């Protein structure tokens, strides 16, 4: 199947067409206030006082967002607290983003008339850049240019019965078309890692999946707690999930059935197309920005229901530049917040649709949003701050 996308100079295809202004902060935010079609984000993770490995994670997020196919061009500024570290030096960020042949402009407050001078110059540049971006037309391209990322959350038994299998169908469809699909949440493969390892494309990938689960389980045990006091979260338990293993075994259904080509770090770009496991954390303020930095052009949140009672509006998770879809198989969740939800697969439990029919409908929904239809999340002006997946102590 095909969708209508923005073909970039490096051959990648965007589902949206933004000018990105980074790193996050006052200058970026003020430029975006003035110019529609621009994107930035909020996050306390700027790099100051962070170790080298954590600074590299932040760099991967910034570079990855800059190289995302939904980004037409990038404005960088040199006024971020972390900019003095080599990993986050503005010249390095510009060089790495430029590898995607994306236009990059750099603001230097020390050269451009201080903070306000940099903002004025940034506004002038951004206006010109969004105008330039708007001249690009969508073209019909193959679905091998889709790159998707997923998280399941507020999971209940409807997630394992129908919600995640629908995502799995979508993943199989995209991967067999030659596209890219990413899943992760390392804590939530504990108890199911052997099933995933069997699907690894090579013995090395299998060993890496098992290693990721083992590292996480060792960390969990070091807390001295029953993991059940943390995860499954209270909403999961309220929804009928009784143990981490049960949650994991339901969760891996969203990965479909195709071979797993590799294991990616948070915000790492996949080396080729195919299905990838990402060693990341389930937090919704963290995981989707990571997928965006890995190059996703559509992301999905498969929602259960326990614990969302009373929520009639579901706000999107921060992705900066990527359309975000809500999916659920829980009839109560769907009826409470139907105008926030892009896709419902409870039909499979109700017996009115087969899993294949429901999966195919999800695939068409994704193609539609990839082609420009707004996701429900895109109809709300809201973005939470991003919580980057930093794992080291801060000093």
């Amino acid at each position, binding site marked *: 199947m095909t969708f209508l996308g923005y073909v970039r100079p490096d051959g990648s295809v965007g589902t949206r067409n933004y000018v990105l202004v980074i790193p996050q902060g006052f200058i970026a935010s003020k430029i975006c206030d003035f110019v529609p079609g621009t994107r930035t984000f909020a996050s306390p993770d700027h790099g100051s006082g962070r170790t080298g490995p954590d600074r590299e994670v932040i760099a991967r997020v910034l570079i990855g967002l800059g190289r995302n196919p939904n980004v037409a061009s990038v404005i960088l500024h040199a006024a971020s607290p972390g900019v003095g570290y080599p990993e986050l030096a503005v010249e390095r960020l510009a060089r790495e983003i430029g590898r995607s042949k994306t236009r990059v402009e750099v603001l230097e407050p020390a050269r451009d008339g201080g903070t306000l001078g940099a903002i004025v110059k940034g506004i002038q540049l951004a206006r010109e850049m969004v105008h330039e971006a708007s001249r690009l037309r969508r073209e019909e391209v193959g679905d091998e240019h889709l790159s998707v990322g997923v998280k399941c959350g507020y999971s209940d038994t409807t997630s394992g019965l129908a919600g995640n299998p629908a995502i799995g169908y979508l993943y199989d469809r995209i991967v067999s078309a030659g596209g890219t699909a990413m899943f992760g949440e390392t804590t939530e493969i504990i108890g*199911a890692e052997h099933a995933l390892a069997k699907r690894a494309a090579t013995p090395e990938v299998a060993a890496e999946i098992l290693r990721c689960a083992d590292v996480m389980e060792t960390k969990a045990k*070091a807390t001295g707690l029953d*993991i059940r006091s943390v995860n499954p979260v209270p909403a999961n338990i309220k929804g*009928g999930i009784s143990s981490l293993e049960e949650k994991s*075994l339901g969760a891996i259904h969203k990965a479909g059935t195709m071979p797993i080509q590799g294991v990616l770090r948070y915000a790492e770009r996949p080396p080729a197309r195919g299905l990838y496991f990402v060693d990341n954390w389930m937090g919704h303020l963290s995981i989707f920005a990571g997928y965006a930095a890995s190059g996703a052009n559509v992301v999905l949140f498969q929602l259960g229901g326990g614990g969302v009672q009373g929520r009639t509006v579901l706000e999107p998770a921060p992705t900066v530049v990527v359309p975000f879809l809500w999916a659920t198989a829980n009839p109560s969740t769907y009826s409470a917040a139907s105008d926030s939800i892009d896709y419902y697969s409870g039909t499979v439990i109700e017996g009115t649709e087969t899993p294949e029919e429901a999966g195919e409908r999800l695939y068409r929904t994704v193609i539609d949003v990839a082609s420009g239809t707004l996701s429900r999340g895109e109809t709300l002006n809201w973005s939470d701050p991003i919580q980057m997946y930093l794992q080291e102590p801060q000093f």
Partner: protein
Amino acid sequence: MMAKRAVIMHPLDNVATVVEEVLPGEEIAAILGSRTITLSAAEVVPFGFKVSLVDIPRGEIIRKYGEAIGKASADVPKGKVVHIHNLDGIRARGDLAQRSQP
């Protein structure tokens, strides 16, 4: 009275997941592919919760998706709800890891 529906994910499973709320004494039709196992609910089984298909003795592995999701922390008679009150997780148990240290 129509039997209430439940789904068995795998032939090895000793629990089924009900897809509608079941009241005590109601009949449950648990579906596994083309087969149906019928049993009587011993208590209220809320939507999406698990019910035991057989008597599960304390300490026995509880299986869903054909895999271990934990073990029984109490005897679970057939037709009872299986949840955190009678199922213990096995993995990532920091509490047990510390207790077993000298």
